[in-house]
């Protein structure tokens, strides 16, 4: 027993001497738990998406349609856009013909059109149109659900108007007014209230059906919502990704690829320390070799390795799940190269700031998991709190996934992906600049 206790004491002594091991065991998990909690919105009252850009075109002059728009604006899940900013900074209301190009241009992914004939001219019913780019399945399902809820909550008044319009067509205006007057008199006699207000409410289509809709429980069988859904015609149009062969796999492959790439490149960065330990830097630098030669050769190695790895992963996706990687292969290679450059720069930065290989590995694990989570590799960014969404836009995972989605999901051209490529290369250049600065002043080559 004494021997076991001695060896046990040795293990603890070794462990507490290794600061990297202590951080990995205690600090890193706590930090990750906090970050993941923020990403997944733990302890938030509302766990749905926030700030999803939703374009709304209201072609109807019906006050109830405007009420629907206002209701959507009040919904914190959406950031409603009704105007378009012209190149000269002036604004004008969005038109339906603006929506599809703007969705394709990734200015927003969801749009609602309230047509002029929102109230059906034939029979009783309503007509609405939703346009979408469903590149994230979870987000799309949730946003559609929220939109339908908002519509159904505001439908009853429009539906009442539809009934009034239908009745007017068959009864004529004078007889309908008499009918409304008789119903209002009966209602006020039975339930009280002001006769004129009740008559006005009936004429505007407000039959108090909103209370019925509010009582509807989503998902329950045979609810009033079913009734509304039968008479409210929502026309859905998928603007982007209609022809994608394997939509589910295409949506997720980018996130997976990025995570594996980051891990691989972090490992190759840690190899710096092996070379230092072996004295190879001494040997190289005693030859006509500069530090910059070592750094840039390692950077190119990382980029090429990453490019090959990403290409292999996408081809595996093609073989296993039928993802179309050949349709836009040139652009895919470009975005893979930019993503690999950004990831490599990240790996180089790790090597330049970490004092040891163990610290580099620990830091890499922490940052890879953090960036994957915040960048949207696991979970739609729109479901995160707004400040996390802002942080996401500073991660290379976010922009790499944007690029993969542009190429594989939206089939965008080389010119269209250039801004994303530029951002990734900008990240690579910025991070490499810091890494080179650190390499030239840090102890790695000593």
């Amino acid at each position, binding site marked *: 027993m004494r021997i076991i206790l001695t060896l046990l004491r040795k293990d603890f002594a070794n462990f507490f001497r290794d600061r990297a091991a202590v951080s990995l065991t205690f600090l890193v998990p706590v930090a990750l738990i906090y970050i993941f909690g923020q990403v997944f919105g733990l302890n938030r009252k509302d766990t749905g998406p926030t700030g999803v850009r939703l374009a709304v075109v209201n072609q109807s002059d019906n006050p109830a349609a405007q009420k629907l728009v206002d209701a959507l604006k009040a919904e914190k899940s959406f950031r409603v856009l009704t105007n378009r900013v012209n190149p000269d900074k002036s604004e004008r209301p969005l038109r339906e013909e603006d929506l599809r190009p703007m969705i394709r241009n990734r200015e927003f992914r969801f749009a609602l059109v309230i047509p002029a004939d929102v109230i059906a001219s034939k029979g009783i019913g309503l007509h609405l149109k939703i346009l979408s780019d469903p590149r994230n399945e979870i987000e799309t399902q949730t946003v559609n659900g929220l939109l339908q809820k908002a519509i159904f909550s505001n439908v009853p008044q429009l539906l009442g108007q539809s009934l009034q319009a239908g009745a007017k067509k068959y009864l004529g205006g004078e007889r309908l007014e008499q009918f409304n007057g008789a119903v209002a008199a009966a209602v006020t006699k039975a339930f009280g209230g002001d006769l004129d207000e009740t008559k006005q409410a009936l004429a505007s289509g407000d039959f108090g059906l909103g209370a019925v809709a509010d009582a509807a429980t989503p998902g329950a069988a045979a609810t009033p919502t079913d009734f509304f859904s039968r008479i409210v015609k929502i026309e859905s149009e998928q603007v982007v990704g209609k022809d994608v062969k394997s939509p589910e796999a295409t949506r997720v492959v980018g996130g997976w690829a990025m995570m594996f790439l980051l891990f691989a490149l972090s490992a190759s960065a840690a190899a710096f320390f092996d070379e230092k330990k072996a004295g190879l830097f001494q*040997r190289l630098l005693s030859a006509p070799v500069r530090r910059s030669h070592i750094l840039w050769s390692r950077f190119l190695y990382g980029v090429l390795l990453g490019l090959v790895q990403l290409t292999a992963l996408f081809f595996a996706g093609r073989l296993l799940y039928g993802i179309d990687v050949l349709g836009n292969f040139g652009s895919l290679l470009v975005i893979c190269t930019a993503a690999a450059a950004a990831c490599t720069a990240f790996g180089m930065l790790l090597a330049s700031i970490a004092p040891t290989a163990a610290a580099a590995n620990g830091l890499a694990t922490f940052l890879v998991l953090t960036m994957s989570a915040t960048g949207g590799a696991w979970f739609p960014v729109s479901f995160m709190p707004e400040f996390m969404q802002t942080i996401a836009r500073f991660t290379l995972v976010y922009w790499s996934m944007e690029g993969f989605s542009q190429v594989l999901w939206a089939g965008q051209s080389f010119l269209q992906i250039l801004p994303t490529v530029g951002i990734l290369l900008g990240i690579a250049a910025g991070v490499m600049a810091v890494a080179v600065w650190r390499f030239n002043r840090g102890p790695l080559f000593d």
Partner: protein
Amino acid sequence: MLKLDHITKRYGALTALDDVSLNIAPGEFFGLLGPNGAGKTTLMSLVAGLRAPEAGGITLDGKPVTAADPSTRVSLGLVPQSIALYEDLSAEQNLRIFGELYGLRGADLRQRIDEALTAVQLADRRRDQVKTFSGGMQRRLNLVAALLHRPKLLLCDEPTVGIDPQSRNAIFDFLEARVRDGLTVIYSTHYMEEATRLCSRIGVIDHGKIHALGTLEELLARLPFQEEISFPASPLTAGLAARLAAHGEVTTGGDQHRFHPAPGFKNSAFYALTEELELSSRLFISERPTLEAVFLHLTGRSLRE
């Protein structure tokens, strides 16, 4: 060939080299003898251009050696203290990489690789991964990797650490042959046996200072004694002590006589005397001066401290 002029190098508060000056002539086998932490590796790294001194200058064939300018580095080769090889690659691949870094290409490079591998008896293992080699084989490859481009000056930073005597001797033979061919070598070690065997001139370094510089004989001459033969003080040896006094200094302390021969006195004369007096050789203990003693004398501490 190589000139170090009042070099000072500090790491924070630690002065690793303190006003070191040194001239190395072409074809010299110069030994840098000192314990761990004496400043040997720092001196090597400054000469190799890996670091810059805080004060002083280094020139190689009249050209300044600086960390920023790699042009002088084609004239020197560095054998680092560690096995600085890519252990997953083969011996041949390692040599090809290091050769190409010096601009060697094609048939010339292939020929030099063949010669190098043959010279260190690794030709038959040329395609094996370095990590499968013994420590001695790795050390030999580590050495020739620094010579492929045929430098004028070879910096060997404790190149025999942790290897068997056979491999050590093979390395010594190899280096001695290269020096005979005109190579200049700076060889750092804390083994006095290595410095004694190999070096035409030795610098004794400790705490960043060169304490003494010279040939082995010149360094040994700095000791207050050259050789000491001690034997018991007894009536049996009294005659010998009296006779030896004519050939050097005899002192008596406790129950021992100590004889320090005068310059030119040969040991054969001593043994002739003992035979004449019919004294057993088991009575005598002979101590020759060593570099260890020189180091102790100069620095007040042992090489192994």
